[in-house]
């Protein structure tokens, strides 16, 4: 069967895969019988993530890399060009600061949860909302514990659902191989094996084993399927990066569950660690496009249109050329590592505005709290008062 024989077919397969993944992973409405005060407003926080420098993005010379933000989204919203991240300049702690409003100092590789309550826990607890109301969708594989703190009064019962789409893909493949209970994906086995072959060895290998067991396949079949899948991945019309997969999964979750609070972590930009400036710029442009497409998607969904506030913010910057180690790293802790920006769009946001008022990324969490109507005491940030709550 020419499962991936044309672009249209490839897209069909992708939709089938999404259905397959979603059916297995997305929770049923477990809290269906419970009355919950679901707010009218919705918030999507997008980390323009992986670490970007101001000069490569929102500064005048960086506009060329963010054409959608610069010419289409910023004119519709409010821009804070002077934002700053205070804290350890790793991805987990900086994103932890965004979702808690407090600086975090936990393991940089994600083996520890944030130490103060996250917006997800506070939101769900105060409004008695089911888990499907709050989501983290993350390209960064170390964000498994980003959805909730370790605090006794919070934690798992109130955490967000966290999806790491790449990991999910692998788990889905394992499920597809091991059970007959999945949805009716034609040639499911072939799909699963093709995905496995592409993703098995050393997938994001650094310190992370992806799967424990594999299903033995005939060599010829494996080789044939591998070739088709690699061609499939090579096609520009299908997800070719982690962020594309994250975007894809975000849309699926929005379509199916319409949660009130989503944090979407894009992270391809961190390819800058490879030291190839052109790949870093390419990832910035991709993120810019995905943010734009996400906002377009919001407009197509009645549950989101006119009631959604989108906050786009890099979780941290990268080193400066002179004081630090350049775009490739974000270790120096210099100003370039900390200088970021924030763009707000949609419900409650003045159009075409900007303010030079310095803000901090800690301000994101209390802003989300104010929009969604829950209390956020004892955090370091302050709500962005320019927004209408």
């Amino acid at each position, binding site marked *: 069967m020419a499962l991936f024989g044309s672009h249209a077919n490839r897209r069909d397969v992708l939709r089938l895969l999404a259905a397959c993944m979603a059916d297995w992973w997305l929770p049923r409405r477990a809290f269906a019988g419970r009355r919950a005060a679901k707010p009218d407003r919705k918030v999507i926080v997008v980390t323009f993530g992986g670490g970007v420098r101001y000069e490569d993005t929102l500064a005048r010379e960086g506009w060329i890399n963010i054409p959608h933000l610069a010419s289409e989204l910023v004119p519709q919203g409010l821009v804070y060009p002077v934002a700053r991240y205070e804290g350890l300049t790793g991805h987990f702690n900086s994103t932890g600061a965004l979702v808690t409003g407090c600086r975090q100092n936990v393991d940089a590789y994600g083996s520890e949860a944030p130490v103060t309550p996250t917006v997800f826990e506070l939101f769900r607890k105060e409004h008695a909302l089911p888990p499907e109301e709050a989501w983290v969708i993350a390209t960064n594989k170390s964000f498994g514990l980003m959805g909730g703190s370790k605090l006794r009064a919070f934690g798992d019962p109130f955490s967000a659902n966290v999806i790491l789409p790449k990991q999910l893909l692998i788990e889905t493949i394992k499920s597809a191989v091991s059970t007959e209970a999945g949805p009716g994906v034609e040639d499911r086995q072939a799909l699963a094996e093709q995905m496995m072959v592409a993703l098995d060895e050393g997938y994001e*290998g650094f310190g992370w084993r992806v799967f424990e067991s594999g299903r033995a396949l005939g060599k010829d079949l494996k080789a044939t399927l591998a070739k088709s899948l690699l061609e499939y991945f090579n096609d520009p019309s299908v997800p070719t990066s982690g962020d594309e997969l994250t975007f894809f999964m975000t849309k699926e979750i929005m379509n199916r569950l319409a949660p009130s609070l989503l944090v979407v972590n894009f992270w*391809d930009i961190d390819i800058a*660690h490879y030291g190839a400036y052109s790949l870093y710029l390419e990832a910035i442009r991709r993120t810019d496009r995905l943010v734009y497409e996400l906002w377009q998607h919001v407009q197509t969904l009645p549950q989101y249109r006119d009631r959604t506030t989108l906050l786009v913010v890099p979780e941290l910057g990268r080193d400066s050329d002179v004081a630090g180690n*350049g775009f490739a790293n974000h270790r120096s802790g210099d100003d370039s590592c900390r200088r970021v920006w924030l763009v707000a769009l949609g419900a409650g946001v003045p159009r075409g505005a900007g303010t030079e008022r310095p803000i901090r990324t800690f301000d994101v969490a209390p802003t989300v709290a104010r929009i969604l109507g829950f209390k956020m005491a004892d955090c370091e940030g302050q709500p962005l008062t320019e927004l209408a709550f």
Partner: protein
Amino acid sequence: MPFDAKLTGEAASLARANDAVLRRLPATVHAFILSDLQKWPALFPAEQRYQRALLEHLSRVAPDELRQLTGGIARIEAEAALDRIGERDPTAFQDRAQAALRKQNLVAGWRREIDRFFQQIDPALESRLYPPDAPRRVVLQLYGSGIAVQPDKLWSRLAGAGTRIPLTLDGIRSSRDYLRALFDASGESGRTSLFQRLRNHADGAPHDAWIIEAHDVLHGLLDQPAASPETHSLTGLSYERLLPYRDALMRALFSRIQSGVESPQAFAAYARGLKIAPEPGALLNPAEIVQSFVRDVLLTGNGTLFVNNTFVEWAAVQAVRRAQPRMLVTRYGVRDRLKPFSSLVLFSRPRSSDRIPIVEDPVGSFVDVEQLSYYVWVHAEKSAAYRQKTLYLFLAENLEQMLAIRSDRPGPSQPPAAPASLGDVCATMAHWLGLPDPARSGRPIAPLVG
């Protein structure tokens, strides 16, 4: 903190002779010095000179003054209760001290104090190590043919610096021709290349001249039988020639991943302990210290295992920082386009089923090398060994132009009226380095040597 560094030889003597001052230092500084002394055989002469100078300088500082200099560091160490760490090996102590500082959110403050300490002692060390009459240096950065150079954007990060000098490339038909002319490396009898002249002059050592390249054209040129004396006259790293070594490292890392690792830190520790050497012939100078250097570059530099130009830049920056060669040549090349999802497939072993053809990215490579060559310049200018003493040359093969920056006079100057030949460029480098030019292959370019 009574450390047990298990030092031997000259490092042990040095530590013994300066034991009193070492004990007066805050534990993290003490451990840092001992940890460097533990690596003594793997330190380049410039690094050893620095350690000697550092200890001698600190020994001359009065105890009260030293206490004042290091007070900020000691205060943070006390706040972090580092004295509770019982570890006696200095390197292991450093790891635990860093973890403790991180845990208590004190890393930034500690780093600030460390910077402040070195800012206070560096001027004295630098004036001693690099007096005004210290040797001059050349850093030449070359964009190999194949890179899609956009002349209007060329060396844009250095706009306003140095002088653009027109070149004539008469008779140059290939990269090999270009490089032969540039380094006077024709291999003809009676002619010695620039590298050989540097080696022969004033007790030059192989570490005095480095070539670091993405491919291996320059290696091939200097490795020819006719030029065999070159082999040990300089240190050369070729990303392409190191392919079997890179594969061996990747296989080892991959195998470790397959067997499971507890954490990225544990993985890094495993990588540090790998004992795999480059194959014979992979390095022009196969000395142990160079092997160790290459291993560090490949295992500690982000992307150096995967991207050729990243390897060139990071190796060059490390060479400038550590070996401080008098002549450094980098030659960048065309990087392969990353395969879809390959940004996620670290340490993966390619299989026969991976049929996606390798596609080069000459346009992206130009964007990359513009940034990377600039970084090499930035890092060199941060070093007292290079500041004020270096002639920086930027060239792109097939392009009749070069950018030259004298670090002692970095502003633009009047370019010569007539285009210079590659022989003139070679003669300029020789003149700058104070080397003889017996064959007179060209004439030094006046604005650069005047």
